[in-house]
């Protein structure tokens, strides 16, 4: 038996390899560096890895290939854009994560135990969150370029496992954080199982694991359609779980609320990019010719997701839960781009992911600033009068909310316009109407928060706005500037996406 060594195109894999390398260096730092230098060394390594990966990505952006690592990956324009978006969001999030006050000193200790107290008193500094983030980033970069089901599953696990851990790292409200981690892990494990189950059926249908092979089988139409349908359904469950679409959303409010806010920011923004990247690829490449089978149900899911997310968000009293439900609604909007199944739909979805991701990081970054002696204050009632206390912070938060609501002159508006016009162009009038209606509902709760911040008097209960660290300031201001610029001069970015975003088959 002869063995042919796989041909690897290292230049195209380099962005992912760099991030993985950074993660491993991070693990070594955690093991060997003195605790006084650990945090800064970790930050340096993480930022360097992400920036280098981004630079390499820009360098190879035009070198499409369907065989960078045999047939397991496809490196193409859409992949470059999605990987780039993940990296940009990761960079912004790393700055937030570097604010160590929010992370527990001893993650492995039982909440409230003597061991934990001692660790806090001894001011132990553990920084495992940095390498974990980098591992997750690597998984997220792999996810949207994976082009066979096994690689896709591996990427899913690589990105999920670190996130499960990171959700449990919160310094305050340890129990809620651990609960979030456990919930996320259990439900995530279920959804992974669904995904695998579906993958098996797709293999049974097409006797191929690659997207191209499945596409060929779907186009040929020779296989057993029941297998195909079950396969699409269960693979979709696994993927829709990750983006938090109804009815697979149940984890997200608890996990968003329990996780350290910096992690929530990263998770909410970057996971969505990666997961939608994978959804786009598998639906656009493999399932496109079977659209009559899956499109109607996906339309229903999208509509229900939009309306459900917007309606339930109204009732929320916690800012992180509200943002979680709003992110469910946005998952519905993004699904509209998947359903469009067209080039404008692809462009619009990628633009929306970038715009939404950056605004999300910015919004959560501001949540980290509102604190009292027991950590962050996420009860909305205690945000009353924030505009009086700290007009700039409240104003920026209001601006992000307006971007989520899709008010003109924010990136959210351009995103909404392009994604709905793409959906309507391919005939989904229902999506357009549902989208507009749920945007109107959503406007209500975004504005409610603005009213609370600006038109209510402050409550004197020790809630205060901390002065952001330099890095947090960078994250917030960059996010705000990008949100504004993408709202007013989106043409360069849209053009770039339009010329770059293609799926190689």
């Amino acid at each position, binding site marked *: 038996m002869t063995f042919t060594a796989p041909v690897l195109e290292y230049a195209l894999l380099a962005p992912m390899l760099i991030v993985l390398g950074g993660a491993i260096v991070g693990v070594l730092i955690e093991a060997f560096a003195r605790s006084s230098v650990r945090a800064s060394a970790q930050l340096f390594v993480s930022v360097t890895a992400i920036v280098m990966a981004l630079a390499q990505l820009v360098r190879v952006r035009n070198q499409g290939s369907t065989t960078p690592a045999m047939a397991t990956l496809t490196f193409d324009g859409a992949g470059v854009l999605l990987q780039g978006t993940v990296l940009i969001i990761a960079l912004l999030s790393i700055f937030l994560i570097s604010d160590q006050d929010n992370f527990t000193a001893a993650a492995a200790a039982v909440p409230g135990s003597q061991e934990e107290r001692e660790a806090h008193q001894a001011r132990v500094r553990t920084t495992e969150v940095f390498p974990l983030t980098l591992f997750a980033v690597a998984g997220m970069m792999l996810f949207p370029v994976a082009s066979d089901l096994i690689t896709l599953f591996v990427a899913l696990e690589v990105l999920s496992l670190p996130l499960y851990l990171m959700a449990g790292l919160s310094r305050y409200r340890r129990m809620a954080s651990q609960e979030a981690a456990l919930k996320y892990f259990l439900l995530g494990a279920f959804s992974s199982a669904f995904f695998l189950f579906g993958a098996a059926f797709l293999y049974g249908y097409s006797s191929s694991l690659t997207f191209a092979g499945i596409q060929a089988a779907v186009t040929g139409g020779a296989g057993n359609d029941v297998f195909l349908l079950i396969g699409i359904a269960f693979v979709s469950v696994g993927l829709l779980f990750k983006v938090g679409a109804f009815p697979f959303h149940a984890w997200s409010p608890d996990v968003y609320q329990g996780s350290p806010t910096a992690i929530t920011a990263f998770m909410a923004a970057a996971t969505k990019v990666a997961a939608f990247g994978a959804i786009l690829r598998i639906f656009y490449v493999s399932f496109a010719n079977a659209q009559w089978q899956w499109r109607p149900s996906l339309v229903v899911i999208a509509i229900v997701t939009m309306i459900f997310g917007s309606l339930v968000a109204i009732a929320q009293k916690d800012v992180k839960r509200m943002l979680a439900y709003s992110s469910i609604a946005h998952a519905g909007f993004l699904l509209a781009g998947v359903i469009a199944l067209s080039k404008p739909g692809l*462009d619009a979805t990628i633009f929306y992911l970038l715009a939404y991701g950056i605004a999300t990081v910015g919004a959560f970054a501001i949540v980290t600033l509102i604190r009292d002696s027991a950590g962050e204050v996420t009860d909305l009632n205690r945000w009353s009068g924030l*505009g*009086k206390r700290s*007009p700039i912070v409240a104003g920026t938060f209001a601006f992000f909310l*307006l971007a989520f*609501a899709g*008010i*003109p*002159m924010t990136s959210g*508006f*351009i995103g*909404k*316009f*392009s994604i*709905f*016009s793409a959906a*309507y*162009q391919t005939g989904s009038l229902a999506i*357009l*109407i549902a989208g*507009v*209606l749920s*945007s*109107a509902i959503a*406007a*209500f709760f975004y*504005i*409610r928060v603005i*009213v609370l911040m*600006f*038109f*209510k008097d402050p409550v004197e209960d020790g809630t205060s706005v901390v002065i952001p660290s330099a890095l947090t300031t960078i994250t917030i201001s960059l996010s705000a500037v990008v949100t504004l610029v993408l709202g007013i001069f*989106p*043409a360069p970015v*849209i*053009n770039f996406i*339009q010329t770059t975003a293609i799926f190689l088959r």
Partner: protein
Amino acid sequence: MSSLVTLGLLPLLGAIVVAVLPSNNVLRIKQAALASTILTGIFGLYIATQFVANETALQFVQKNQWIPSFSINFSVGVDGLALVLIVMSVVLTPIVVLAGWNESEGGRWSAKVFYILILVLETMMIGVFAATDVFLFYVIFEAMLIPVYFLIGGYGTGERAAAAVKFLLYSLFGGLLMLASIIGIYVVSSNAGYASFDITELAELHTIMSPTTQNLLFLGFFIAFAIKAPLWPLHTWLPDAAKAGTPGTSVLLLGVLDKVGTFGMIRFCITIFPDASKTFTPVIIVLSVISILYGAFLAIGARDLKRLIAYTSISHFGFITMGIFAMTTQGHSGAALYMFNHGFSTAALFIVGGWMISRRGSSTIADFGGLQRVTPVMAWMFFIAGMSSLALPGLSSFVSEFLVLVGTYTRYPVAAIIATFGIVLAALYILIPVQRALHGPTTPGNENLPDLNLREKIAIAPVVAVIVAFGFYPSPLLNIINPAAAHVIESAGFTDPAPTEIAGK
């Protein structure tokens, strides 16, 4: 650069100047704001003198690419109607600033924020009338809600936050419906091979739209404008907003911003969807007549001065909408003239009413009485404003109301006759408060109210001058308006009904 763009940038420049001035020097901030609005006003009048009256094509045109991927342009230009409204806006703004010299104090935020909001709003007011790209129009249409929202909620009185939210939610809901229609226009035009948002190109679009599509898209626009204008039964936000806002804000809200609704009906509804406009005309005429009478009855019953003025405006907007949808040149000219005159007569009522309220410390009509003896100048000014509002011959509103009724009668005699009762009711709703507030015995507490000071006299003088001058000699305005009105009617495919009675004799 078109002089229109320069005009629009002037207030924005003023806003920047105000922003860099030190916050504690309130007088300097006010002077800077006043100076830049006066400068804008003068430049606006200069532009008006450069306008060629008999030209039906758009003038002062400028077109730059904005988002080429969606065929969105930054394009501006004016016809007679837009020019008149822009001139009205830039003349009213300095008057508002001067008349409400102390309005900015006692708000939630500093005087600086107040004037920045006013100046930014002025830029948007110019932009919204000048925009000839539907997308650009929409962006400004929605964005201008934000400064108004903060002006009402931050500087108003009473239930200001609730009123501001009600205003914003109503407007956003209408705006989102319009967004759906704009997406529809984009999709229809790009399916026809020329994606466009340009108002002159879109005028051809109706030839290829199916009646159903046209009706639906028309409704999206019309409902948004009917909320803005506001037409019964979508008016309920207006009295609250007008009562809560400062008098200056209310002048801008009712005098200028609500005109965007009626302006939009002409510019977008009738021009882009002439067939749908024809289909819906009977319904709209009925709603207009209801608005005229309903607004008038509520005004008669109003106990609060500001609410009274708001209700009179609902009645007046009924006249304007009726004139527009009568689809005759006289009706259109009358409606356009009415928009201009209503701007000034409402401004006069709100400004003088605002002075009365701030002197008395109450806005209940019953609290006034005998002002004619105590404060003769103020009482006379209120009287003239009231007479203008009831369209006394010799004052400017008379000409426009007459034209609207004549223009409507030729096509819808019944509606015109019923609407004429609105004039009788107008006499009631104006004369009752005039009698209660100005005449009769002096109500206790009013004996020592000061009369108008020099600043206030200077502020109100131009308003009264406009009301009287255009009452006697409206032809300079009509010369500008008539060609535009005739052009709209003609290009939408309507012809004026022949005066049959004369032909029969």
